[in-house]
């Protein structure tokens, strides 16, 4: 009987140890990106990228009850919030797709244009255009009152011609 108990304890102990040795973070759907972006010599932002500061002047000005608040300015990227009555209704951004060339491919299915630049709706809350085949101008609604037609209207308020000359 004693022997039998010892065997059971040994087996249980083995199971516990085996389980413990296998416990680690479960695989994540972002593991591949983690691995790719951690290897030597990789970067999320390339040297040739325009600075974020150079984009600021092409954003539309505040007005007609809207307030514009710049929020991020990093190499290749600038972002501002659009606020109405103190509440954020949308975010506007210009990014240099030199840093993320795959962002360009969606414009092959463009559904129209603004100022001759291809336009696309992305997901349920964003509308974007691609200027000079390089600079992505995107507006995302953060409030349901800010509709697709508002996004298109505000996209057309950017100085797109000026931005295209940055290229």
């Amino acid at each position, binding site marked *: 009987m004693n022997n039998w108990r010892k065997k059971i304890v040994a087996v249980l102990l083995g199971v516990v140890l085996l389980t413990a040795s296998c416990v680690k973070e479960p695989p*994540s759907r*972002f593991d591949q*990106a*983690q691995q790719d972006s951690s290897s030597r010599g990789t970067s*999320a*932002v390339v040297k040739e990228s325009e600075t974020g500061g150079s984009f600021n002047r092409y954003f539309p000005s505040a007005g007609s009850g809207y307030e514009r608040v710049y929020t*991020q300015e*990093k190499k290749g990227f600038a972002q501002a919030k659009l606020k109405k009555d103190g509440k954020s209704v949308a975010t506007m951004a210009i990014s240099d797709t030199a840093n993320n060339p795959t962002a360009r491919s969606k414009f092959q299915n463009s559904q129209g244009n603004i100022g001759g630049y291809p336009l696309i709706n992305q997901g*349920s809350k964003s509308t974007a255009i691609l200027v000079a085949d390089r600079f992505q101008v995107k507006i995302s609604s953060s409030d349901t009152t800010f509709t697709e037609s508002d996004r298109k209207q505000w996209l057309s308020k950017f100085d797109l011609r000026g931005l295209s000359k940055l290229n």
Partner: protein
Amino acid sequence: MSKPIFELVDNLPKKNITTMMLNSLDFAVPGQWQNLVGFENTIRHVTGESDQEMIQQIGDRAVWLFNDKSQGYQKALWLYQTVDNADNALGTAALANKVGDKIPLLGGILSKVTPNPDKAQTLDLCIKLVVELVAFCQINGIPGDSINDFVGALGDYGGESLMRMAALIAIDGLIPLGPDFIQKAQSSLGNMSPKELESNATFKGVKDLIPGKNSRGQLEFIGTSFESVKSWMINFINERNLTQGKVFERVKGFVDVSEDKLDYVAAFLDMTTNYYEHTGTQTLAVRLIERAYAEI
């Protein structure tokens, strides 16, 4: 190399002393902070998108941005992590002693807590404020010592960032130092020598990222930053009619302690919470996701 950003956000605690403390401060910034944890969950919350392919693209890009050291996100995270000096063992022991929903601050736990002298406490407060400024600049990309831009942006703070500032004022200011904590901090900074600054443990941890040529320059930077943010803090307190008594009432909702032990409560919360790291990780995740969402 930092841990992956998705792991850090996935591993944020759902409930511990830090979240209990932050929840107790909801009265000061109503509805601003929900304990948003989980990377995918944060993507959904920030963007309002549920399409799986989009979530994948946003998450992937956020991972890339975080791992590019030139982008400053890892420095910001390091600052938020380093300025907190939580003692995990004490926190776990305190939680294990919980009676109902309250942690009794007596006996063995109380004997492990040593209140900070006023001078060290004021310096902690000032350094945390400067860490917020530097981390803000690292995350949002304005030059590292741009005090004015930061002060302007404070007016637009919301969500977990505003909660972090509320906790700074309430838990690191009002509770240990009382209603005149701002004057106390200013006078203690004014009388401080660079040598004293150098010997402060909180400063030692983060000094490499505090602007200034040497400790004298860094002391000046801390002083100038505090001076610039002073009126924002005074307004914050006045608009909300915040007092030491009101904050203490809320803290007593989860810590069982007597009225005359304010300095022990302050030291206990200092040792068992990491609200800068917790909400700082949340801020970082939100900014990364916002940028990734715009860039994909």
